[in-house]
Every structure is written in C-alpha cells, then in structure tokens.
C-alpha cells in the first residue's frame, strides 16, 4: 500500500462538533493502524487455534471470536474513513511480528495453554487497555469513543472466555499451564510492553510527533494512561485466572527490567497491585 500523506487538518467537507488537531489525527492514525494490525494478528491467531480446541463447541466459539476480530478491522477502517485519517503500514510498530511468531510457535507445538495465554489473555489485555482509554467518557471525540466502546465489549468477552478456558485447563494440568504462562510471559510481554512503552518514542522518531499528551483541541489524551491501563489489566487478569502467586510474583518482578531507567515505576505499581490481590 502506498503511504498516504497525513492530513494537516480534518477534511473540510465533514462537519464535526468536535475539533481535531493535526497532532490528534496523527495520533489516531498511529493508534488505529496498530489496533488494526493487532486485529489482523488476532484473526490469524484464533484461526491457528481452532484445530487445537478440544471439542466442536469450543471450535465454533473460536471461529466466532475470529469473526468478531474481522468486524473490528472493518470498524476501524470505517472510523479512519469517516474521520479522515490514513491507516498506514509505516505507523505499525515492529513488535507485532514477534508476537505473531511466538504464537505461531506455540500453535506448532500444539501448546493450547500458551496460545490461550498469548491471545485471549495477554493481547486481549492490551486491547482492553487501549479501547478503554478511547471509550472513556472523558474522550470528547464521540465517533472514536463509540467505535472503541463497541470493540471493548467484544474484547472483554474474549478475555472472559480465555479465563474460563485457562481455568478449565488448569484443573486438568496446572503445571503445564503455568509452564506455558512462564514461556509466553517471557516471549510476549516484553514485546507488548515495549510497544506500549515506546509508542511515544516511535511516534517522535518516525513521525515527528510528541504525543505524551496530545492536544485534541478541547482536551488531552494521555498515552501514559494507556500504559497503566494495559498493565493493570494484565495483572488483574493473572489474578482472576487464579494463577499461582508464587509464579506470577516473579513474572511481575521481571517486568521492572523492561523499563527504561528514569521513567515511570510501572513495575513497582504492578507489584503493589499483586500484593493487594495476594492479601485477598
């Protein structure tokens, strides 16, 4: 696909009550291009998972999940067209390829727990964090908010399905599921974390935009919030899936090393959350 020029303002023929600055459109282009890539990866991941599912009903359920991700791709493309910003390959972060490769490796090994953990839990946690930020009432961009809310509902359902499936597998073989968690965490989470954490740098370096806080015209969108939302979802998901705290504590602690020195203390916050969960 030929790169399309990023508009300096929204198209004049469209009348919006919500003003969108050039920087905000650029940020939307970045976020939607990446979200769409994540959805494309999701249909490939769910596709590869179908034959690993143990019965016909769960195969059908997985095809249904893939269908919903297809719908998301179309909704994101429609949003870009409606508002008037491009969906671009150059906006897509390179870590998606690594996440997909790790999933493919798990599928080839017929490691269903690892597949579920990567797609249903880890990737869906990131998606939920992303769509929650854009679906929040604080977002005055109604078109974006509506689409994000629509997608968020499906992704929350997918996370629930994933947790239910993982719980069932843990009843059968807890060690195998925990081994899969450890493997998937070390392979996938650094990529997902880097993608979120380095988003601003990526935009700064590649697209000349400082988006730590981007002026939308009337309010601000904070990517720091997205980092926190995604990680909090990951931590709470690990807790809700009833993974062994002895394992998850170590995984959480390991995440502190992902951070660039001198930046926010996400790792410690995660550990605090985990400590609260463990006390419960």
């Amino acid at each position, binding site marked *: *696909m030929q790169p399309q020029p990023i508009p300096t303002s929204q198209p004049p023929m469209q009348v919006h009550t919500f003003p969108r600055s050039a920087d905000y459109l650029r940020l939307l282009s970045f976020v939607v291009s990446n979200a769409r*890539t994540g959805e494309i990866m999701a249909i*490939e991941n769910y*596709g590869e998972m179908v034959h690993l599912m143990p019965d*016909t009903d769960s195969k059908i359920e997985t095809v249904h999940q893939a269908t919903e991700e297809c719908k998301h791709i*179309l909704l994101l493309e429609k949003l870009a067209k409606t508002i008037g910003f491009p969906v671009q390959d150059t906006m897509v972060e390179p870590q998606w390829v690594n996440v997909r490769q790790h999933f493919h490796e798990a599928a080839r090994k017929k490691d269903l727990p690892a597949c579920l953990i990567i797609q249903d839990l880890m990737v869906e946690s990131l998606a939920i964090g992303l769509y929650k930020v854009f679906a929040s009432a604080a977002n005055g961009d109604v078109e974006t908010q509506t689409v994000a809310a629509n997608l968020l509902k499906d992704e929350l359902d997918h996370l629930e399905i994933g947790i239910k499936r993982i719980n069932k597998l843990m009843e059968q073989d807890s060690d195998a599921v925990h081994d899969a968690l450890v493997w998937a965490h070390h392979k996938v989470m650094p990529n997902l974390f880097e993608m979120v954490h380095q988003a601003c740098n990526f935009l700064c370096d590649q697209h000349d935009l400082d988006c730590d806080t981007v002026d939308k015209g009337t309010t601000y969108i904070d990517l720091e919030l997205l980092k926190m939302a995604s990680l909090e979802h990951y931590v709470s998901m690990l807790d809700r899936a009833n993974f062994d705290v002895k394992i998850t504590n170590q995984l959480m602690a390991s995440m502190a090393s992902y951070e660039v020195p001198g930046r926010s203390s996400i790792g410690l916050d995660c550990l605090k959350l985990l400590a609260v969960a463990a006390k419960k």
Partner: protein
Amino acid sequence: MGQSTATAETLAPPEVSIPVEGRAATQRDEGYFNLLSYIVSNAIAGEVMAIENYSEMVHLMPTVETKIETVHQAKEECKHILLLSKLGTSLEFGVARKIVEPQWNNIRKHFSAAVNRKDLPACLIIQDLMTESMAILLYTTLSKESDTDAQTAAVAGNILKDELDHLEIGINRLKGLLAEDADKVNDALVWAHHRVMPELFGMISTSCFFLCDELSLDCGSLCLTSIKTDIDTLKIEALQRYIQTLDSVGFDPAVTNPLIASMSAYEGMSRMVLGLTDSSGAPCCSPQAATDNGKCC
C-alpha cells in the same frame, strides 16, 4: 496491507428459514432415519474438518480481505454444523458432533502438512475443490425433497448454496495462482490428489470403522435405496463433479487425465466407470490421449 471491501453487515449471519415438521410428518421408516443418522454424522465430521482447514489457512492468505473471506467461510461451516445438529434433534435421530471416521483425520493431517509447507495451492485444492466437490454431491443428493423429506431437503439446500459459493471462491483463487505459477499449482494438485481423493472416495460407502458403534447403528442394515440412490451412482456422480471442478479451474488435461485414470485403482472404481475401457475391458486410448473430461470411450 490493503483495505477490506467487506462490511460489518456482510459478516452478520443471514436468517435461515427451515420448515420444522417433526419426524411423524415425514412418513418415513426407521431405516431412513438410521441412514440419515449415518450420513448427517459424516457430514458434520466434514464440516468440523472444514472449519479447522479454513481457520488454519487464514494466515496463509495474501491480503486482509482474503483473510476475512476465509474466516467467513469457516463461520459458514460452523452454521452448517448447527443446522445439521438441529435437523437431528428435530427428526429425532442421533448425530455425532465430532470427527469419528479416520479418513477425515487423514485428510486433516494432509491439509496440515500443506499448511506447514505454506503450500497455499494445496490447501485450496484440498478444501475448496476436493472437499467442497464432495460436499456438493452430498447436499445435492439430500436436497431432493422427493427422495428425502421437506426438512432435510431444506437444510441440505441451504447448505448447498454456501458450498457452491465456496467452490466458486476456490476456483477463482486457484485461477489466480495458476496464472502466477502453473507448475507449482499443478504439483500441488498431483500431491493432493494422491493423498486426499482415495480418502474422500473411500467414504462413499455405508460401511464404517467406528461411526455405527458411536451411533448404535447396524451398518449392515443401512440401505441407500431409502434415498433412491446407490453407491455406484454416487461414485460416478462424484467422479463427474470432480472432473468438472478440475476443468473449471482450467488445469491442463495432460496433468488431470493421468490423475483421473489413477482412480481406477480405488475400490469399486472400474476402468469402465472412468471411461477408459469399453464393456469388454479393452482400453480405448491412453490417459494422455483422453478427451478433456478424462474419457475416451
């Protein structure tokens, strides 16, 4: 990364209108329902295999649009499982909602081998052409209301439309690939033919390995006259449909004729049925010299 032309609306399931009259209204005997139980269970197994095949193929598809189209095909196969299961419930015959017979697992194994090699032409040939051709034969047979019953015919007719669409999609996809690299596609056909067609033709039968035990049926009592057909007729129709499908794609007869001739080695597939010998058993011509439909008698 092309933009998709499908819309969210096209992914929504269409309403399916099927008459529900119940078992008594069909005025058919126990033997008919036993046969339906056997056939529908095998059909469901084929649909389960299809959702696995289509789903596993998604990541090999070259564009976002074709990935979405393939997920949509898998979704339609899911709908077929639900329709066939509902038919069993409504007409009160048992169905196995899983793959039971080993031939389906063998085909799955070959398909997965093609996926692992990233051999998209072989995947399309196995699923979109070979399996769909057999599915079309099956649902065409069941959709004749005069030979079955109103509800079975309606369900089969509904599924048949989707399978014809899938065959059309497969033919178009393969035409595109043939134009890019004919040798690669022909090699894929030769490989897939020898691996998959014996398994598919082996299932045109009323015998089984495990299915009758699973359904608590006496396989020996199953009789295709209940739906006014017989094994030989079905085999000939399956062969004709397969040849027609290969011709529709535009495969070279020099490649397809030897493949069709090789099918005489299948159980119950005489050289006369294949059109390679006359009634005395004398060969009419060599496979290479046969007409475009593989016959020379």
